[in-house]
């Protein structure tokens, strides 16, 4: 009988203290990471035939140079008055 009472008391104690834990209440935001497929880079493609845009395939610098020249085509002060 005494053993049973001890067991019940221990169980009651465990149950009573169960809510006394202090789990972290603050949400921690984690930076997501892209989960999709990898994408190709524009300078890895061949320039189109019969187009003015020319760069060496795989050469980022030459692609950037030609796209920058193309961007400057939007600058009428340079395009018209040069």
């Amino acid at each position: 009988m005494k053993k049973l009472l001890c067991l019940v008391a221990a169980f009651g104690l465990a149950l009573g203290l169960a809510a006394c834990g202090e789990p972290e209440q603050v949400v921690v935001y984690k930076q997501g990471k892209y989960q999709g497929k990898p994408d190709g880079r524009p300078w890895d493609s061949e320039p189109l035939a019969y187009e003015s845009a020319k760069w060496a395939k795989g050469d980022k610098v030459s692609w950037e140079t030609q796209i920058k020249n193309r961007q400057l085509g939007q600058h009428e002060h340079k395009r018209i008055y040069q």
Partner: protein
Amino acid sequence: MARMKFLCDAERCIECNGCVTACKNENEVPWGVNRRRVVTINDGVVGAEKSISVACMHCSDAPCMAVCPVDCFYRTDDGVVLHDKDLCIGCGYCFYACPFGAPQFPQDGAFGLRGKMDKCTFCAGGPEADRSAAEFQKYGRNRLSEGKLPACAEMCSTKALLGGDGDVIADIYRERVLRRGKGSEVWGWGTAYGPGKPGAQPPAPAGQKS
């Protein structure tokens, strides 16, 4: 490295919607989806009407990217924000997060089912083989891989809409503002007059020009 951006000059935009049409045509965008649109304020008020062409601004710290529950967004080496439609679940969080209303959702199927998100790709396609049929069908044309700029900017008749490396187009815009002596309000001091140059001064008002 280039950071691709759009910049629309409100002093020049004539609300022709040429950019919208160019985008629709180039990327074969379905009905009900507008990757680009022209917004006009003070419509019809003489002297106060201003228009601006708006699409995805390819933010450096993109809110759509931050809120996406399936992490389908990525940024390319050129700073273009793109997404993988195979992962997108069409939840619409990106639409709520975007300050420009760029994400669009095709409505089809029963009860106006919301499809996968569609938005401006800066004519850079998406995560499929460059210039492939699959890429064109899902994301539209990949003009950057053809050495071209976005169709909307290249088609703009008044060159109000500039597209390209942020530094280059800011230089173009800055020279314009300095020549005409007005119109810096939309894009602010840094873009219009240079990135914090010591001693930089605003241009004299139009009436006091020499």
